[in-house]
């Protein structure tokens, strides 16, 4: 744990986290832009999410009189938990001190913490929609989580580490190896990511139709800076999943040494990977329609099945060979 006293490393980690947090709305802007283009609409500006957030931060916060103090605390908890999650994910560089304070299971735990408070906040105002949204969100998450961990386990068993930086190191050191298990794990993780970030076909981030809302139902009572934090956290979460998938399955380009050139290369690489991923997501969101809620379990079971196949192929095809 010698990295701990590395001042340069910490600065870099802080910088990376700041970049992560500030870039998240940009990613959403990019996604919206792509979607609009694909749907033959006029696209909003790439920076529109920033404008929205600024607007919300300026606005007065209104709180339901039935709500408890938890309602006001929740956005901060949700946001900080998401930020801490973002901080431990290697974005540009692998060898950062933040990467070792939490492994991938802790990361899932932090997302869980954020979700826990999000769901509680949904129920706090005492309206019908909030509870509905919380119930659905928790249901979906509880099915997605095992699939995700199963996929992650497949990777970590290959890399023999649950620490992301170590795992990425390992994969980089191995060079290009085509693993069937990774293919299945990637598929599983993609499906889970879609479900967890509330994208079509599991949830529609733009809908406010009562019967279909999941995420939106929970934050229905929020306004002003609270809403801004919640929205920002959601955008951050999308980026987290994007970076996770990008950097685990296609780790190439990420900075192994903390030199400026390497970091710049890393920045370019991750930007490219994320942009590509967004294209995939935008296309799929355009092509697919939102599912009924009770078809989601089937969808997530598919994810789990992929993850399980990944595990099986790892044990049968890769270890034995």
């Amino acid at each position, binding site marked *: 744990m010698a990295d701990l006293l590395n001042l340069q490393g910490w600065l870099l980690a802080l910088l990376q986290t700041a970049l992560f947090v500030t870039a998240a709305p940009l990613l959403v802007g990019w996604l919206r832009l792509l979607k609009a283009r694909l749907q033959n609409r006029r696209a909003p500006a790439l920076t529109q999410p920033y404008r929205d957030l600024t607007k919300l931060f300026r606005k007065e916060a209104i709180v339901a009189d*039935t709500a408890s103090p938890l309602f006001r605390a929740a956005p901060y908890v949700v946001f900080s938990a998401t930020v801490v999650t973002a901080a431990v994910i290697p974005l540009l560089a692998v060898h950062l001190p933040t990467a070792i304070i939490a492994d991938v*299971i802790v990361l899932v*735990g932090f997302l869980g913490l954020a979700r*826990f408070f999000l769901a509680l906040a949904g129920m706090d105002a005492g*309206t019908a929609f909030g*509870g509905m949204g919380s119930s659905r969100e928790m249901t979906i998450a*509880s099915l997605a989580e095992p699939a995700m961990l199963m996929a992650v386990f497949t990777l970590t068993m290959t890399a023999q580490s649950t*620490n992301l930086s170590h795992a990425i190191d390992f994969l980089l050191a191995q060079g290009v190896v085509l693993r069937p298990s990774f293919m299945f794990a990637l598929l599983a993780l993609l499906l889970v990511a879609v479900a967890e970030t509330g994208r079509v076909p599991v949830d529609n981030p733009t809908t406010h139709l009562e019967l279909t809302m999941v995420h939106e139902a929970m934050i229905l009572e929020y306004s002003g800076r609270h809403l801004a*934090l919640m929205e920002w956290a959601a955008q951050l979460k999308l980026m987290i999943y994007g970076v996770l998938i990008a950097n685990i399955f296609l780790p190439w380009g990420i900075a192994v040494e903390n030199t400026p050139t390497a970091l710049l290369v890393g920045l370019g690489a991750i930007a490219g990977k994320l942009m590509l991923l967004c294209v995939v997501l935008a296309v799929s969101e355009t092509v697919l329609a939102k599912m009924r809620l009770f078809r989601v379990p089937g969808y997530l079971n598919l994810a789990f099945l992929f993850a399980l196949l990944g595990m099986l192929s790892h044990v049968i095809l890769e270890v034995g060979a």
Partner: protein
Amino acid sequence: MALQLIAYAVALSLLSGVVGLAASRYRQLLRWACFPLLGLSGLAAATGGLLALTGEPAAAQLPLGLPWLAWSVRVDALAGFILLLIGVVVFAVAVFGPGYTREFLHGRHSLAALGVFTGLFVAGMQLVVIADDAFMFMVAWELMSLSSYFLVAFQHENAANRRAAFLYLLMAHVGGLAILLGYGVLAAFGGGFTFEAMRAAELPQLWAGVAFALAFFGFGMKAGLVPLHAWLPEAHPVAPSHISALMSGVMLKVAIYGFVRVTFDLIGTVQVDWGVIVLLAGSLSALLGVLYAMQQTDIKRLLAYSSIENVGVIFMALGLAIIFLASGHPLLGSLGLIAALYHALNHALFKSLLFLGAGAVIQQTHQHSLEHMGGLLKRLPYTGTFFLIGCLSIASLPPFNGFASEWLTLQTALQGVVLDSGVLRIVIPVTAAMLALTAALGAMLFVRLYGIAFLGQPRTRQARQAHLPSFGMRAAQGLLALLCLLLGVLPALSIDVMGAIPQALGGLPEPGITGQGWLWLTPVSAAAASYSAPLVLLGLGLAWLLFYLLLHGRNHQRVRRIHPWDCGFGPLSPRMQYTATAFAQPVRRIFQPVWLLEEKVERLSDDKSGQLTSLRHQLLVTDRSWKVLYEPAGRWVISAARRIALLQSGNVRTYLSYSFFTLIFLLWLIS
């Protein structure tokens, strides 16, 4: 020293019981003598346990027991650890008790029974842990069962409570007998009842298996493993809440202690198959426990089912430990053991915290059903906050203690790659995924519990009128909540102390979980996995602070309070809120075959217009194990009894013919 303190602890709890005898006459005695004595006992047990955990094993003999076998007591690190756990929870319960039992003072309940049996119950648990021979173990074990049974039957005017108490005692008895027989096998090969002799015994594989199976059955029944759990959700909720805390928080751990003691210490050489069985049974318990809990609306019943879930998790870790030990990876075996025991400690803390919280809620609202609560966080801010910490811990969210132990368990599972057997290498990750599913469902469960009970608007008048519970009650919860947080944030410190336990169990190696200092948990190696809870908390705090300051630095700290959005239909009533039943509906639908569901919708319509006037929705959730296991057994006994009763026909000539034919038969037999 440790032994002495523990002896004081036992003596104090017994004294508390004896003083309790007088409580029927002097009712205040319960609050001002019994509970303080119990608290002292808890402190002594905790201190003694801590000393034993860090010190050398100590043994002594008591002038009691069989003529040829005095009761022998011994404390080693494992016993010390469990005593520490018992002591802490007992202390918290003793602080909570005086305030909580105030409502019994003027009732018709026999306070003497409460005082006496609480003392005996605690003493029984302490004695089980320090017992060093099978006889004393069984006496203490059954003392624990029997006295807790009386506590379950405390509010016996309710027929359901009596039924629960009956079921509890019956199953405790059966489980106790199985354990006894397990000891019987060990004693037969060891040539004596002392644990010393049993340790030395060389068991053939078959008989080791029999002993293990009996112990697993008996201790599993007490610990509430599915499908032997039927008593647990019945008995735990009906006892007074501080007793429920002791039962769920501590007694189940004593059962786990027994299992660990017998399997790892007395039998010693474990087999892989056992581990697989334990692992699978644990997974099943964990998953079914949380799913059943999800459908409960009674707050204490829900918590009881959640205990089944957590016991399942503990057994999963134990199963992993057995698998690793049996396949020649003692280091990983120790890791699993530590994970299991750490989770046991954590569960003891947060489950008793939650039960005490439930007790406070029930005392203030007189409601047991979640559907009748709501908005309690505003009315009981302390209880609400501490309860939230309990919920976060039990939902295994970082940086609380439940997460630390579950993380260790998952890490243990991930080491399944080292095993030679490909099947195990697949099975173990799958069970790990089950664990993840359980944890996620657990989070949902506690969102449901906390959201329905403490958030939103009060659903009943009683919930609206809840008041602050007494200081002692709040202090007890605060203490436990603080411990939950501490053990979550500084797991390395506590696990470091536990390092001596594997050594005490047949000299297993100490796992290097804390090899990187107090800041880090590194179960296998720093490269494989690391978790630094303090730094994580620091990061969380920093992020919070940063954004809080950023946003509140300006002049808009104030928020405007208005009614929530009502879709334009007029004021929102509390009845429009999502109910606990509705919250669990998606899960109910997805995992439908798990429960026996009886759902009835009653439509009442106006006679004249035929318009729908009201709708009643009724949902009956029954445990499947009843239909599959318990009811057939009960029916079998009843029908056998009916058939047997034909013997007693009432006709004296028939009776004579029995005698006649018995004689003839026996004469024929011998000649």
